[in-house]
């Protein structure tokens, strides 16, 4: 449960009055808010209006938030709703109507933001893992991701390291990213989801429910 370790803890701290935790939540979810707004191709000023409303709603929602894991979905839904309001040009809706509500899917695939939630979760985990690396290793990865690609000789020159060490260090960095708890949690969540889906399907077919896969544990 990645979200209990990170988002859940941030929510609890913010609720207790920790401003740093609130700032971290804002940073954590800004890419998701942006992604939803981009789907609605909002102008920059509209995006900021939507964002403002979402943050206010989140602040008011903080105290009655029970499941930290539901937060990304809640953020996306709230953002989507605010976007729809901007797009439809209606104003003047009361903030209170937004708070704590979950949306019923409208059936329009263009309005479904679930994929954005999944992507944002994955990307947030990767960023968290990346930030846990040493500055030197972060720098190496950034140079390896440079566009256009840089030759190893150039990377070695910039970092003052031997060309021969780049490949092995890159491998170690990648293993560390993979082994990071936030990234591992993605794998575990997916395994659980798949198991649950399968179980439901089998139950629906009237088949005997299989014992739940234990998933991969660290």
């Amino acid at each position, binding site marked *: 449960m990645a979200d209990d370790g990170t988002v859940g803890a941030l929510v609890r701290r913010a609720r207790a009055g920790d401003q740093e935790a609130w700032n971290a939540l804002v940073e954590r979810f800004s890419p998701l808010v942006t992604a939803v707004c981009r789907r609605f191709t909002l102008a920059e000023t509209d995006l900021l209006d939507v964002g403002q409303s979402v943050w206010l709603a989140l602040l008011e929602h903080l105290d009655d938030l029970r499941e930290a894991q539901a937060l990304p979905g809640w953020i996306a839904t709230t953002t989507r709703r605010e976007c729809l309001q901007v797009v439809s040009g209606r104003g*003047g809706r009361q903030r209170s109507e937004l708070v704590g509500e979950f949306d019923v899917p409208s059936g329009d695939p263009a309005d479904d933001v679930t994929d954005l939630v999944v992507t944002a979760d994955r990307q947030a985990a990767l960023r968290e893992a990346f930030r846990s690396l040493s500055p030197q290793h972060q720098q190496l990865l950034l140079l390896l991701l440079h566009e256009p690609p840089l030759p190893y000789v150039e990377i070695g020159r910039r970092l003052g390291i031997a060309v021969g060490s780049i490949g092995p260090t890159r491998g170690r960095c990648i293993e560390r990213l993979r082994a990071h708890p936030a990234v591992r949690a993605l794998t575990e969540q997916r395994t659980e989801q798949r198991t649950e889906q399968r179980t439901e399907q089998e139950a629906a077919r009237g088949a005997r429910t299989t014992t739940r896969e234990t998933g991969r544990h660290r």
Partner: protein
Amino acid sequence: MTPDDWTEEELLAELQAALRAEQEVPGALVDAGKAVWTWRSVDAELAALTYDSALETMTEQLVATRSESASLRSLTYASHNLTIELEVTPDALLGQIQPAQSARAELAARDGAVIPIQVDDVGWFTVRPVPRSPFRISCTTADGVRVVTAWIDL
């Protein structure tokens, strides 16, 4: 696709997308989010909208063929201890705190501006001109009850 299935190349591509997504976030969005913290009012009761004449009018219009809605808009925000009634006139926002009593009141705008409101002995107040952008009103009574309305967007 889970991280376990990713090749090294895929993992790096995912990381690149993740870092890019963060770079594409407008800085002002993050700043606005952090600024919102000042609105946290742990000890205040939230007064929710319980009546809005505009909604009433809309409902009536669904029934009536001709609308005669020249009337003023009125709104009621209620919390457990206090009710704030508002009336929107062309040039001012009129308010009444119920039960009638004096209180310390403030109007807060989203950009962080806070404007004190004069409340008379029987809980009556006037805000001029009518705020154009979303705001909320907070009230503290003599016996320490603190109430803040939901965001109001007229």
